[in-house]
């Protein structure tokens, strides 16, 4: 079986994919994960998963305009300038 290892380099950091190896069962997978990803104390924690338990997703529909739910869907510069002018709070250097 192929097993995938996710490793955490320091407490608080995300678990990141480290690599994969062959092992016949969980006991061996535990042993080999330690050897490959922690024998130099380079990881503080490991997650070990059989490869077949992982699903890969790489395609995402992007048909309609979904910008309303992202930061790049908003441009407030013009309206902000107008509001400041109306309130008399606009500064000459166009400050934020």
């Amino acid at each position, binding site marked *: *079986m192929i097993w995938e290892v996710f490793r955490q380099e320091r407490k608080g950091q995300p678990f990141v994919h*480290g*690599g*994969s190896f062959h092992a*016949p069962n969980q006991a*061996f997978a535990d042993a080999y994960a330690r*050897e490959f990803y922690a024998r*130099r104390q380079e990881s503080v924690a490991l997650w070990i998963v059989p490869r077949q338990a992982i699903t890969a997703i*790489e395609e995402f529909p992007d048909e309609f305009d979904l910008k309303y739910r992202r930061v790049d869907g908003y441009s407030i510069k013009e309206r902000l300038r107008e509001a400041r002018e109306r309130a008399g709070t606009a500064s000459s250097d166009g400050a934020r």
Partner: protein
Amino acid sequence: MDARTQEFLDQVQAGRQVETGDWMPDEYRARLIKFIEMHGNSELMGVLPERDWILRAPTLQRKLALTAKIQDEVGHCQLIYRVVEDLGKPRHQCLDDLISGKSKFHNVFHYPTKSWGDVGVIAWLVDAAAIISQKALLKCSYAPYARVMKKVCWEESFHILHGRDTVLAMVTGTPAQFELVQEALNRWWGPLMHFHGTPIPAEEDPMYVWRIKSQGNEDARQQFLEGYVPQILELGLEIPDPNLRRGDDGIWEYTEPDWDELMSVVTGHGPASQERLAFRRLSRAEVGWVAKVMLPEAA
């Protein structure tokens, strides 16, 4: 070249990273497998010249360091063969092709080791030459391999230090110990000069064209000479090439290596090639039953 392949080529040349599941031209996949497999083969064959010396290491510290170094190399082979497997070639087939001579491994591992001097010189200078290539591979267009190289480079960092320390102990020891190093260097200089390959211009090297390699061979060799010749000479060692000198333009000149010899060695005609392959064949046969019992899919 069809349009889709051309587009792919343009993209990798512009810095695109390729993942395992991406479409890739057959040529790219084939070259990738061949190159990466050779690297894996080299890590595995590289163990053989060194492993005997674990048993003969003259102090407990050196024994531990050398064992750890060789352990890393076996580990690197594992990581690298996994990359090849995910590209479509199973590990057992890589091992079969290695043992039958169908696939190749780097020149330096076709030579015998004769003394503890070799141990120091190999760990220091051969690993140094290798790390230059490996650092360039960090930018490989094929991302799974580039990621493995990151771990490999990190682990290799102590190898060179251990090698240099081993050499330093000998060159500051007895005259006989100094001679061990000099004699080893005399034998290893030729293979080291061959190591980075023929001086083919990068644009003509298919490995570079597809951005599998990100550095030309001559560039790598110059980097090695620039970094390590001064370090070798400052110990009072002599380099067995009377034409070796650094030009005013910073380019190192040297006696042109015999490139036919390199081709002959990597096709299995090196002084230790057949003996090492026979050893691998034998040990694989003896433990074949274990792999079948433990990992039937990878046996």
